[in-house]
Structure formats: structure tokens, C-alpha cells
């Protein structure tokens, strides 16, 4: 008994490129711009510009509530954005009070990481006077509701356990009404949407939100409805770095994003050419 084997045509092979080959190519396209930055141009999007302008327009002495609500997995994307925004807040030298909390249990550790990158002392900013972290508060939306209603009842110490009364930044900070702006960095939609429900809806606190790129489409309705001033993705950190004039990890990632996106477009085109060529040539011969 003989067996016949069908020889795979070039189109069969191109239509079903092994994922190992795809991943290898993707890895190469990641590494090249990381090792050797190309310097692709970076356009400033409306969302990032709106974000920048919102912080720029804050009156002196404004209090900003910042939620470091992302996990370690989201740090490579959201960390650069958080750092760039802190550069902006401190560089304004307008006595802005950056009061940070975390709805993510890893938040305080990631905040430490971000602050090490920012180096607030270069702006003359001091912990307890210009910025503070009041710790991880469990409960998600319950935490947001609680600190919105009565912050001092929900938390009485900073993230190191020191009483909030010892810090001048916390003077006059009682509830959501004490804040002129809310910023949230998160990898979890429950947090980004939760702040809309617990702070924007009852207190109308202006709200800026930075999330993972894949979350932006789901957050767009809130932006369109005016509940969030601007929704950006962490991948747009490079644009923020251009605006605040502190190039760092974000701008480096912009090259990687361009290269890998080009590669993905190439894969899409290749896959479709192979599909149709195979179809019109009558399949494998």
C-alpha cells in the first residue's frame, strides 16, 4: 500500500507560519530599537495635550489625588506615564499637593519605584510637604467611596505608618471636596470606572485616567460623556515626556511600538495575501 503526501505550496506555508517564527521576528523587532534607538517622530495626541493642559491650568496650591492602582505587570507601560506626570507636577513649582494612595496592593512599592526615577529633590519637592503616599486601601470602590466621604476616617497614617497629622500637605484635606483633580493609573477597569462612580458622579471631581492601551476603547464613553477629561494609555508616555521635556523610558518605547506595529501590519498583509493566493490557486497541490 502506498501513501501519498500532499506537498505544501508556498501559500500554505505563508498562511500558517509557525508561531515560533512570528515570536522570533517580534523579539528581533523589540530588541533592535531598544538597543539602538531610531528616533522616530512622536506626534502629540489630543488626549495627551488635554492631560498636560489640565495639570498646567491648576491654580497654585491645588490638591491632586493620585491613585497608583496598577500592578507590577502594568509597570513597564504605566510607570513611565506616572513618572512623566510627576515631573510635570513638580516642575510647575506652584505648590501643587500630590497626595497619592493605592487601590492596588503593589501600589506603594511601585510608587517608591516611580519616585526613585522622578527624584523629587531635584525640584526642591519634599515628602510630607509637596507629595505623600497614604498607603494601600483595600476594598476597591468601597475605599474610593470612603475616602471621598471622609478621608481621615478611612486612613490615619501614611504608607510607612506615620500619622497624617504630622504632614503639612494634609492640612485641610478632609474628603473629595478638598481635591481639585483626580488622577488614576490602573491596569484594572474596576478602578478606572470605579472613580467615575465614586468621585466624579457625586462630587464632580475633574478626572484624568491612564490605562493600558487595550483598555482605552472601553473607557472612551466616559471621556465622550465628559466624565473623564482625558483617557490616555501608558504607551503614550513618550508624548508626555516630550511635553514635559524629560525624555526617559516612554520615548524609548515609542520606537519599539512603531517597529512592532509595522511588523504586525506586515503579518496581517502577508496572511491575507497567502489566504487569497491559496484560494485563487485552488488550494495546495
Amino acid at each position, binding site marked *: 500500500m502506498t501513501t501519498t503526501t500532499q506537498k505544501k505550496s508556498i501559500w500554505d506555508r505563508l498562511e500558517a507560519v509557525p508561531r515560533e517564527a512570528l515570536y522570533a521576528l517580534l523579539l528581533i523587532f523589540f530588541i533592535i530599537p531598544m538597543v539602538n534607538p531610531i528616533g522616530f517622530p*512622536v506626534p502629540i495626541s489630543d488626549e495627551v495635550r488635554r492631560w498636560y493642559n489640565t495639570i498646567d491650568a491648576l491654580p497654585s496650591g491645588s490638591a491632586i489625588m493620585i491613585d497608583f492602582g496598577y500592578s*507590577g505587570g502594568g509597570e513597564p507601560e504605566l510607570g513611565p506615564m506616572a513618572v512623566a506626570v510627576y515631573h510635570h507636577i513638580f516642575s510647575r513649582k506652584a505648590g501643587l499637593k500630590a497626595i497619592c494612595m493605592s487601590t492596588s496592593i503593589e501600589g506603594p512599592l511601585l510608587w517608591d519605584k516611580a519616585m526613585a526615577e522622578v527624584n523629587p529633590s531635584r525640584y526642591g519637592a519634599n515628602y510630607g510637604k509637596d507629595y505623600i503616599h497614604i498607603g494601600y486601601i*483595600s*476594598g476597591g470602590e468601597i475605599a474610593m467611596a470612603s475616602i471621598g466621604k471622609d478621608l481621615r476616617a478611612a486612613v490615619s497614617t501614611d504608607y510607612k505608618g506615620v500619622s497624617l497629622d504630622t504632614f503639612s500637605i494634609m492640612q485641610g484635606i478632609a474628603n473629595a471636596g478638598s481635591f481639585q483633580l483626580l488622577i488614576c493609573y490602573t491596569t484594572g477597569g474596576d478602578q478606572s470606572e470605579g472613580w467615575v462612580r465614586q468621585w466624579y458622579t457625586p462630587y464632580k471631581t475633574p478626572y484624568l485616567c491612564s490605562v493600558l492601551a487595550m483598555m482605552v476603547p472601553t473607557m472612551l464613553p466616559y471621556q465622550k460623556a465628559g466624565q473623564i477629561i482625558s483617557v490616555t494609555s501608558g*504607551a503614550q508616555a513618550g508624548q508626555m515626556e516630550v511635553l514635559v521635556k524629560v525624555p526617559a523610558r516612554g520615548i524609548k518605547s515609542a520606537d519599539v511600538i512603531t517597529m512592532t506595529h509595522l511588523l504586525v501590519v506586515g503579518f496581517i498583509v502577508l496572511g491575507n495575501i497567502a489566504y487569497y493566493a491559496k484560494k485563487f490557486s485552488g488550494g495546495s497541490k
Partner: protein
Amino acid sequence: MMRLVRRQIPIGVVIVTSVIVMSDYFFKITGTGPLVTMLTNWGIILTAFTLGFGAINLFYLHTRHIRRRTSGQWFFSIWLLLMVVVFAGTGILTGATSSTYTWLYNSSYFALSATVYSSLGFYMTSGIYRSLRARNIEALLLLITGTIAVMRNAPALAVAAPILIDMDKWLSEFVVTSAQRGIMIGAALGAIALGIRTLTGRETGFLGRLTEAEREG
């Protein structure tokens, strides 16, 4: 008696606390402010408690694996419990924000977490390559919108071809936003319905394991 304790009383507690907290959103009732603040703070405490409870559960389940020498599992259980002890011990002895704990976190969990998250990019690439094929009209629409979104999010391409920004903006503002709104409204109604079933005692999942009689109330 068991039915009263395991079903009626918990449902009663849920109804009373829910009505108080929900009323606080709609009505300004003098005297209830501190009560609502207290209830929401209890919620924070309970959530924090469940974290600790989760750790206890972890110990219970994994010590069972070790005791029973579950094949292919028990040595991983030993390693897991060892890591829990190391992290907890370091946190308690040196503080959860100390440099030692931070180093431990950065060199283990953070690195692993970021790595697994990053692997999503690879999975998405193979998914895109396989699925964005113009097999029919719906697939063609998916292909076009997906390609526009990918190209627009490449910064250099957006600079080279600004029309991508306008096309993506149109898609986002009209197509994506309207679809997401529909999904959100549906999901919100589902959540409201579950809340109503819970408040009327028709949803007893949160009560844990009940007997047939207790479930029927």
C-alpha cells in the same frame, strides 16, 4: 432555627445595610452620614480581612498537598509556602516598605509579573496573524478597523499619514463608543438585577453552602 441564622438574618443584614448606603447617595439625611462612613470603613476592614483569610486558605490547601504527597504538586507546595513565609517574615520584621522587602519584591514577583504580562504581546500577535483574514464581510470589517487601529497607534505611521488619526478618531468616537455604551448599559442592568435578586432573598450564592430547605427559605 438554622434557616433563621443561615438565611433570614444574613439577608436582613444585607437589606438594611444596602438601603442605608444607597439612600445616602440619593438623599441627604441628617444623622446618617457617620453611619454610612462607618459602614464603608467596615467594608475596607472586611476586604483587608479576606486578604489574610486568603493566605490562611492557601496554607490549608497546600499543607494538604504536602501531607498527601500529591504527585507533581507537593514540592511546588513546599516552595510556595516557603516563599509566603519569607515574604511575610521580611515584611513583618523589616517593614513592607523597607529596602529589603522592596528588593525581594522587585527581584522576584515584579520581574515575573511584568514578564507574564509582556507575553500577552506575543499571544496577541499570533492571534492577529491568524484571525485578521478577509474571509467574509464581517471579517473584512474587522480587518480594516483592526489595521487602522494598529497603524494609528504606531507613532511614526501616524506622523507619516495623519489621515490615520482622523479615521481612528471617527471609529473611536462613533463605532467603538456606541458599542461600548451598549455593553456597559447591559452589564449595568445585569448588576442591578443581581442586586435586586440579592436584596429580595432570591439570590443566595453569597450565603455559601445551604441545604435545599434553607435555599428555598
